């Protein structure tokens, strides 16, 4: 059972949490999920592998031990994987991985730096007989590859199998995105039971080919289209999908029906893994504020546009300079902005203003000015809401693989 729970920026948010409170920084759903899963997994002998440790795997492991003790699971073994935190090993002027410049160009405080760990960091935990494996920045597909390497005894030089296992991981890592979640388009791609969509199951054979399926009792669907969409999700060159374990080749993958809600995938390839590991560097990005007011009925769009003008004048007057600010009218141009030519026939629009600043007080000014539209703005505006949330920024750099030393510690409930 693999729980992949980290995005690029989630670790940075975890570091922010950890800096405020050293006992936090791991996934806030950890306790709830362990309470839900440990009894069944304990009874079935199912190992849980997760990166819910985020920026604080040690605290997450300790919390899991507490949950296990409360459930009476004495002797449950929790492996804590560390070593992804490489803040002390990365030079302050390390060049960016995929853009010009280096870390010293960023005028924001660093909150943490985490290297993507591969299956070789996870396998030792499985060899030690862990019931639960918790890490931080474990690479998404590596968490699925590790148990395959462990169970089948795949050799680190068997690049074809590592590529095949990475394909399985890539298809599984977004959970329900391969079982019909994030897929439905009424009339074109209908999905039954989406409100009770099931998690994917991969039945993997020793040669690395696999059937992707789900429980029959769960909603959702697994078909050629759901698998193909996920095959290239966040993939650039299909022949070169780089992970810490292997450079996987998805360009010749065979995808075929193998029964109801069963799709077989095979023929993934692999070439050598990279010599360096990707590191996500998180920065404290200050605060982001969002505020909105709605207009409906005749001339709603015109009134919304007037609201944009008014708030714009007020903010530039009050804050001066070049505030990091964006206006949109939901119903007219909020997502595709000016990219399309969409007729503004709607009579139900919402002004949406977003702003980012290092100073919370500036963002508070934005919220107040948008709320003020209700007494000094266009007629008929309503439904003001405003929120301010902490913000992070991330950059990617590379680190020599040899400088990253993952560790495993076993804790016992």
């Amino acid at each position, binding site marked *: 059972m693999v729980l992949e729970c980290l995005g690029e920026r989630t670790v940075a948010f975890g570091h922010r949490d950890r800096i405020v409170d050293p006992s936090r920084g791991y996934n806030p759903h950890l306790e709830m999920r362990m309470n839900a899963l440990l009894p069944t997994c304990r009874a079935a002998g199912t190992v849980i592998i997760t990166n819910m440790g985020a920026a604080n795997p040690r605290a997450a492991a300790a919390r899991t031990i507490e949950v296990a003790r409360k459930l009476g699971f004495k002797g449950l073994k929790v492996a804590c994987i560390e070593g992804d935190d490489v803040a002390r090993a990365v030079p302050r002027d390390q060049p960016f991985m995929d853009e010009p410049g280096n870390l010293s160009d960023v005028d924001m405080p660093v909150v943490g730096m985490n290297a993507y760990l591969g299956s070789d960091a996870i396998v030792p935990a499985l060899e030690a007989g862990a019931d639960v494996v918790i890490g931080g920045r474990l690479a998404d597909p590596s968490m699925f590859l590790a148990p395959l390497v462990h169970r089948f005894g795949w050799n680190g030089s068997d690049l074809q199998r590592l590529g095949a296992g990475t394909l399985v991981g890539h298809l599984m890592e977004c959970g329900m995105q391969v079982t019909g979640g994030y897929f439905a388009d009424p009339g074109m791609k209908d999905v039954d039971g989406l409100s009770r969509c099931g998690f994917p199951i991969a039945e993997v054979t020793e040669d690395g080919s696999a059937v992707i399926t789900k429980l029959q009792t769960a909603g959702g669907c697994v078909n050629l289209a759901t698998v*193909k969409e996920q095959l290239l999700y966040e993939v650039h060159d299909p022949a070169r999908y780089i992970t810490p374990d292997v450079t996987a080749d998805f360009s010749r993958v065979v995808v075929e029906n193998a029964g109801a809600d069963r799709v077989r995938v095979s023929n993934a390839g692999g070439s050598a893994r990279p010599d360096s590991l990707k590191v996500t560097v998180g920065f404290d990005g200050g605060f982001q504020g969002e505020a909105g007011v709605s207009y409906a009925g005749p001339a709603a769009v015109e009134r919304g546009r007037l609201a944009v003008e008014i708030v714009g004048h007020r903010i530039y007057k009050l804050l001066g300079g070049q505030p990091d600010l964006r206006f949109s009218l939901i119903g007219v141009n*909020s997502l595709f902005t000016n990219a399309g030519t969409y007729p503004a026939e709607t009579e139900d629009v919402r002004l949406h203003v977003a702003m980012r600043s290092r100073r919370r007080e500036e963002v508070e000014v934005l919220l107040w000015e948008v709320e003020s539209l209700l007494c000094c703005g266009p007629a008929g505006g309503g439904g003001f809401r405003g929120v301010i949330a902490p913000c992070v*920024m991330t950059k990617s750099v590379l680190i020599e693989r040899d400088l990253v030393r993952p560790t495993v510690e076993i804790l016992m409930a």
Partner: protein
Amino acid sequence: MNASSRNARRIVRDIAHARAGDKGNTSNVSVWVYDPADFELLKKTLTSERIKRAFPHLIRGEVTRYELEHLHGLNFVMREALEGGVNRSLNLDSHGKSWSYLLLGLPVDEGP
């Protein structure tokens, strides 16, 4: 509605499905035809140049097309296409998750 007037109005969504993903300021959208017989039409309709030309303000960088012939799919990698990406963009959809429908909304090239 006769076939020719319906065809005249066909959009990519009528023949294909898509999913968008992001990495930094780069968006990728994979597009897959429902019927393999439409794959040549999709390839003719969705060229890198066409996409770049259709959204000049949104997609500012290079557009690269990868073809998966045997699966009847195209993968478009669009650089500088996310207003700075999730770290910088103040777009409500800073990941460009909705970009799949940007491409699915383009008219199918039915010309000779």
